[in-house]
């Protein structure tokens, strides 16, 4: 694997398979009494979370600790960066601390790219603005492969606010890379007009798409006022695109319902639907740790860019 994981475009199809297969082994580690292996002993992983996300940060923290790495958490309470240090100054401080890997979540698209210019360690994008969230996409691919046995040829719909969703981008790029058929579904104002160039279909009629799916992937729809200029009301969105009980019957038997969390119950998904057995939303959380362990292992398990001259030996 390359030095950093900033975008799904950094990975080839072989890389993705390697990550998923490696994650299998880490899943097995998670079933042991001692859920820890010494693989990354002595390495330091920094969690640099400018956006509040307890779930993802803890997932990364557990992953790093299960690999016996040391973890430093730098979580900024508010997302306003005008308070306190600039990103560059923070990066230089982390560099001085000897961070082998920096997991960064930030509200500005492109921050992980910029971080790579200022630090020598490996940079892992845990979500940057509306750009990408590759680890989420990878754990979603893992869940799909585990439940459905394959990725190639899977028919997946990504439903909701694609325009502002980093998960939608990473997932679409990843699925297309692995040979799946992806359809983006949502109001015309929330799907980038150039999206078909990503190798996906676009539809504004969710009822037409549901009967032909293996996976229905729902995005969180923001209901803050700025978002509301893209559609008239939450009620209309829910009526046209929300996954309610009636719509669920349109899904083929054996298909999956997925959501990256946290859910807006009653907007993109109804409460009773979220708890149905074909909904694998819980699995997505469990698999997250194994996938993140696989990523940390694959990134840091090779000769580090920042490392001294250790030659391969017998």
């Amino acid at each position: 694997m390359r030095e950093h994981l900033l975008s799904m475009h950094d990975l080839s199809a072989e890389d993705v398979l390697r990550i998923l297969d490696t994650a299998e082994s880490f899943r097995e580690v998670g079933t042991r009494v001692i859920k820890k292996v010494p693989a990354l002993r002595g390495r330091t992983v920094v969690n640099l979370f400018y956006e509040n996300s307890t779930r993802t940060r803890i997932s990364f923290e557990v992953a790093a600790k299960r690999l016996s790495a040391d973890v430093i958490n730098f979580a900024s309470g508010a997302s306003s960066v005008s308070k306190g240090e600039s990103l560059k100054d923070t990066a230089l401080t982390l560099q001085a601390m000897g961070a082998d890997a920096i997991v960064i979540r930030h509200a500005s698209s492109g921050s992980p790219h910029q971080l790579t210019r200022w630090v020598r360690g490996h940079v892992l994008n845990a979500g940057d603005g509306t750009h990408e969230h590759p680890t989420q996409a990878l754990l979603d691919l893992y869940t799909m492969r585990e439940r459905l046995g394959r990725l190639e040829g899977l028919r997946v719909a990504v439903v909701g606010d694609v325009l502002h969703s980093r998960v939608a981008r990473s997932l679409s790029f990843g699925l297309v890379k692995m040979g799946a058929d992806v359809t983006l579904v949502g109001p015309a104002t929330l799907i980038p007009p150039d999206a078909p160039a990503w190798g996906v279909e676009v539809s504004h009629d969710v009822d037409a798409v549901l009967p032909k799916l293996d996976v229905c992937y729902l995005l969180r729809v923001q209901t803050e006022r700025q978002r509301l200029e893209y559609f008239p009301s939450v009620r209309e969105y829910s009526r046209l695109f929300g996954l309610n009980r009636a719509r669920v019957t349109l899904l083929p038997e054996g298909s999956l319902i997925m959501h990256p969390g946290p859910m807006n119950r009653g907007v993109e998904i109804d409460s009773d639907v979220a708890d149905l057995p074909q909904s694998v939303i819980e699995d997505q959380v469990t698999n997250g740790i194994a996938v993140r362990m696989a990523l940390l292992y694959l990134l840091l398990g090779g000769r580090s860019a920042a490392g001294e001259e250790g030659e391969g030996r017998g």
Partner: protein
Amino acid sequence: MSRILEADDVRRALTRIAHEIVEREDQSDVVLVGIADRGDHLALRLAGEIRGIVGRDVPVGALDITFYRDDIGLSAEAPEVHETRIPFDVSGRTVVLVDDVLFTGRTVRAAMDALTDLGRPSRIRLAVLVDRGHRELPIRADFVGKNVPTRRGDDVRVMVTELDGEDGAVVSEAEPATAGRGGAA
């Protein structure tokens, strides 16, 4: 490149090791754990031989030691990961680790660390098909198929039908300026 074991040699060696295990160990608590990935297949074969001798199944598992290696971070890529599959408790058992080649001893060291994270075996024995010398750690095999003297830089490879299409072992001489392989046995 020269051949050090033919298919028949492999078969005879495994049969002999099976007999030795049966003679020396108390069969009631022996379990075999093969070190992935060739040791895994050899362990399954040994289990078959032992069943032939005592008429009973021996529990067999596969252990991937990648995460316990002491050379992670020294090669360009992270070492490749295999599957661990040990569907029984190792605590209180006589664990016979099975590997294809014993070289520096570092793989076995990693295997013992992994095993002790999984439980507390009452004793650990080591069975290898080929012992090629050049130990870097104080580790010795209890059951050996064949002792083969080699030069430090040589490359010794065991083949098993399940993965390579045939059984055997070969040694290739070192290139004059090559360092040894990373993470070898």
